[in-house]
């Protein structure tokens, strides 16, 4: 199924679901951010990451343990 995409509906419904108020200026900024972030976010969601374990608490000061 192709993703149904309406930025205005998504943004308005999402904010309303949380009870977050947004004026026209807020909405303009949010639309611009959404336009920037949403396409790569959808690409990220499509990534097959099933083989990648989540490191629960990686030690970012060091290289990861060798697999």
């Amino acid at each position, binding site marked *: 199924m192709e993703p149904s995409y309406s930025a205005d509906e998504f943004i308005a419904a999402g904010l309303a679901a949380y009870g977050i108020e947004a004026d026209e200026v*807020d909405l303009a900024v*949010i639309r611009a951010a959404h336009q920037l972030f949403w396409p*790569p*976010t959808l690409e990220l969601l499509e990534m097959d*990451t099933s083989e990648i374990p989540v490191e629960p608490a990686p030690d970012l000061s060091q290289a990861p343990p060798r697999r």
Partner: protein
Amino acid sequence: MSESLDLSLRAQAAAIAAGEIDPAELLEAALQRIGERNPALNAVVETFPERSREMLEAAPAGPLHGVPVVIKDEWPLPWRAQRFGAAEMLAPTAPGESGPYRALRDAGAVIVGVGNMHELGASSTGSISVYGPARNPWNTDRCPGGSSSGPAAAVAGRLVAGSVGADGIGSIRYPAAYCGLTGLKPTFGRAPMEGHHMAGVSTTIVSGPLCFDSADCRLLGSALFGEELEAGRPEGLRIGVIRDAASEDVAPPVHQACEAAIEDLRRETGGEVREVALPELAAATLATVLIANSESLGDITPARLNGLDPELSPIARGLLKYRVLLPSIATLKAYQVRTLARHTLAALFDEVDLIAWPTVPAVAPPLEAPIVELPSGTLSADEANVRGGALANLTGIPAISVPVGSSEGLPIALQLQAGWGRDALLLDAAEALERANERRWVEQHPPPPADA
């Protein structure tokens, strides 16, 4: 005494230690210079002469004894809470002894002012701040870079010779690049974070130095790390470069200067340039943004978002509200991308010592319109800059920005990244590059602001 302020950080420290400069006179000269030059730069948002004098009186005989420095508005001081460049922080804040403050104090440094920053640390440009933006000393109509805009502008404008910033997604390296400085993003966890409102929560933010050159960064970095970053002369450096379309989407003058610098570094160290691949780089960039944003959501509630301070910028207000719409599954995937990128890098650093690419793909854009022209078209500076800055924060590796050229009278910078814990190697490589170009770019300084 004011000419002493034009000395490097290490020369100031050495002259004080040798009794050639009176640190009390140097402090007063720094305060005077801030008074003269800062109105044009807005680099320093607050001075506290009595506190600075008290700090000097109590200063131990450390490696930075009596040397004036600036610290970003991201770190609390015992007499001042950080404001994070914003009218409202959405996180608890109070005066206190932050880790960088303690490190500076214990090294004998004297904090003379708080450096401006981009509002909430949320941009690579420095174009928005509750204090008004800091200005780039090379051209005060241009962005100083962010989010550590004030610390960079303060050093480039020669108000002080060293400053401490913070880097969550490139926030030391971008302003270092725009202002023609050397800026080190340390390995995650190596520099002090205590007292930061995200300490213990953020997995991307580190403190780090911004200075004229690598030797000064080594001195200030050693003070921050609490351990000596020993100098060496690297030989046979294996320099990794990426040759894909996204990585080469760089303004031609920047591309040329960085390619020349990479060749300079190769020649100086008798090394080699190897083409490497980082296929998850684009995903890593988004992953960094998602992780950094999700980690700062803890203090947000719908009620707080409905009652935001009206003095927050419209962009900050909108972006804060947008964060709650980002899906958690994307953030989970972002953590998986982090794992993947860390493993890819670990293998890559078996093959090369450094990865090199431009710190930012274009010179500092206008403050009024922070957009850049790249081969792919017109982009917001943030969208363009994050491509080069995010990887080190996502994975924890150290990175350094080094000035390597100039275009339109504005600095161009190369970024070097190394494996975990190899911060000293980055400083060595930056120093090798300075030798190779006869310190041409680190010795260039903008003239004092016209109305100073």
